């Protein structure tokens, strides 16, 4: 069954690591729905949130291929697990004075912020999961979207479990690696601590 598969990936904070991950997924034909990358609490480690669309075989293969990369420390599959997913969108809408209040009203419903307003336009800032952002965009469309920008989704598992480098991590419930695989080292037998 085709679905969106969010995964959280810890990588070494090295130059070119984004190109490695994106290049790997692209050349092996995986469909990247979104990809976001940023620093973590540890300066040596970056964290990527990758959403790949495909069935379970595609998801499994994508995870295994990611684990082959030397710069990839850990991959955690969040598909079907309780997790928080957030993205951000800035939507610039045409807003002549007579329509401002309608836009503000909608923004309030979505808990979105008006981050800019001028004579003819407004920038609405909305964050949330994919569905919420898309619903907001749909609501803004009739006003005339002048331009728009979205971030990739960032994802994090709920609960006390934490995705960190080996030695410090608290495994996710049900996050036992496939039998025979070790989640603490990657496929290259490299340990990070």
């Amino acid at each position: 069954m085709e679905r969106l598969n969010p995964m959280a990936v810890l990588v070494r904070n090295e130059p070119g690591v984004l190109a490695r991950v994106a290049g790997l997924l692209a050349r092996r034909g995986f469909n990247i729905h979104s990809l976001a990358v940023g620093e973590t609490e540890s300066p040596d480690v970056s964290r990527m949130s990758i959403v790949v669309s495909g069935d379970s075989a595609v998801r499994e293969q994508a995870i295994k291929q990611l684990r082959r990369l030397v710069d990839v420390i850990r991959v955690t599959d969040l598909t079907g697990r309780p997790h928080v997913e957030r993205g951000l969108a800035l939507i610039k809408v045409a807003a002549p004075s007579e329509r401002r209040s309608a836009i503000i009203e909608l923004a309030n419903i979505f808990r979105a912020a008006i981050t800019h307003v001028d004579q003819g336009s407004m920038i609405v800032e909305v964050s949330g999961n994919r569905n919420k952002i898309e619903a907001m965009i749909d609501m803004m469309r009739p006003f005339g979207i002048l331009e728009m920008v979205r971030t990739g989704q960032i994802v994090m598992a709920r609960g006390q479990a934490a995705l960190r480098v080996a030695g410090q991590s608290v495994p996710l419930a049900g996050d036992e690696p496939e039998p025979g695989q070790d989640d603490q080292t990657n496929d290259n037998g490299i340990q990070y601590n």
Partner: protein
Amino acid sequence: MKNHSQRHHHRAPGPRHSGADAVIASLHAQGVEVIFGMVGGQIMPVYDALHRDGKLRHIIVGHEQGGAHMAEGFARATGKAGVVMTTSGPGATNLVTGLADAMMDSTPVVAITGQVPSHLLGNDAFQEADMRGITMPITKHNYQLTSPDQVASVFAEAFHIAVSGRPGPVLIDLPKDVTVAQTEVASALGPRLAGGRGAVAKGHPMQIERALQLIKNCRQPVILAGGGVIHAEASAELKALAEYLDIPVTSTLMGLGNFPGDHRLSLGMPGMHGTGYANLALYNSDVLICVGCRLDDRVTGQLESFAPQAKLVHIDVDASEISKCLPAAVPIVGDAKPVLAALLTGAQAWESRPDFGAWHKVMATWRQKYPMGYRAKDGVILPQQAVQEISAVMGEEDIVVTGVGQHQMFTAQYYTFRRPRTLITSGGLGTMGFGLPAAIGAKVARPERRVVCIDGDGSFLMNVQELCTAVRYRIPVVVAVLKNCNLGMVRQWQHMFFEQRHSQSDLACPPYDQVAKAFGALGRRVERPEDLSPSLRWAFQAAEAQQLPVVLDIMVDPEEAVLPMVPAGEPNINFIPCRVEER
């Protein structure tokens, strides 16, 4: 599998030396004895350090591609990482084919490339090429250094990555300022690594038990053994398991030699040009034990009809190969050596062994019905005959290297490989021109063994300049060029699938014995079948006696096709059988 060894920093401040000196010191620390390379502008500081050091053997290559294949040949003959060094730009880009080849065939190679100084990076400077970007998809990992302090740790990590787990090529790009600048960091053993080949995955006991249950209760098992068995040095374990359980073994092209080719349980090679009986056995198998083999399209043919009844037990050190092509009933992520040993131990605990006698009887009928063979022709050398003659004069541990094409397949079919690391061939990428330089690399690694390169004339010409290297360094390889004045495999396909339109597949046909002599090598032309055997004996004797490469220009029948053959994309059981002698 977890290795909790601590960091090995070994970073006591030493005397100051240049990044280039650190490169040479790191190569010594890794036990490197020989490097293949070609000097040029941006790598000159490292060559200067090499000169200063004076203790590393360096072999100047004719072309950097040749150097990459030499490093591959060295690696495949030994299991150690082969090292190739070039300058920036074209020197580095010439490595691309060799690195892609090493990636596909899991060959440990460390490539060291010069680079323009850091302040010029991204400026399209003279001889600048983005080697990190270019080689990202064709290396296991790559680096570009920014400080001489990184040299020691990066080299240690690079060699570890090249040989550990599933081996592969690693590239280290060295901007000139990094090699010129001074550092106090001495050589390191591996600051960020679990260390050495210590971290070997043994396979999950539960999965091994599940595999044993399948094997115990099956009737028609087959072991499909690939190059991973050779990388893991697991041939003895494979033989012990197959013999104990009486299970037939088919070895892929990359796996040839992992199991004795003349063993009663050997089915030969499977796949497109495999034996009919191997393909039939795979098709009819109910349990398929695939070890160190990635089930590529040349092995499986049409996937759905490869082994349709079989439950697949897939053993591989690279988890991503499991269930990549075919879903595995039992996935075993692990090194072939401990996993095969564990399977044997498990089977030895059984009260009784399964009886596969009926299965062997069926396979015997296939062997009889579809034997390997050809029809000899009077006065003409057939390529198969040439390979058999070579096989007859070679010792068990001697090494065969090939190019790519018909001669390669004839070698796979008609040479009897008995020991691992005795066949060095380009399997995944199919690189014509691989043979001669890889043979040189193998001979450098194993001077005590005979090394023959069985080549085609098309392949031989693609890196013929390395004859110069072999003459200069007195590397006595024997090259047997099976000359048909065609791109034989292309011609065969044109004959069979393109209504005999032989588009651009004929070759100019210079006398290769004369070419050899011009380079200062020895050469002989061989035209008649009765001359084959004496010429081969002369070639090996003369090569060793004079410490020179020998080229045999062997005229073979251009009409001979590689059979059996499975037309591309068809089920393997639709093979076209050999046309054998009337009996």
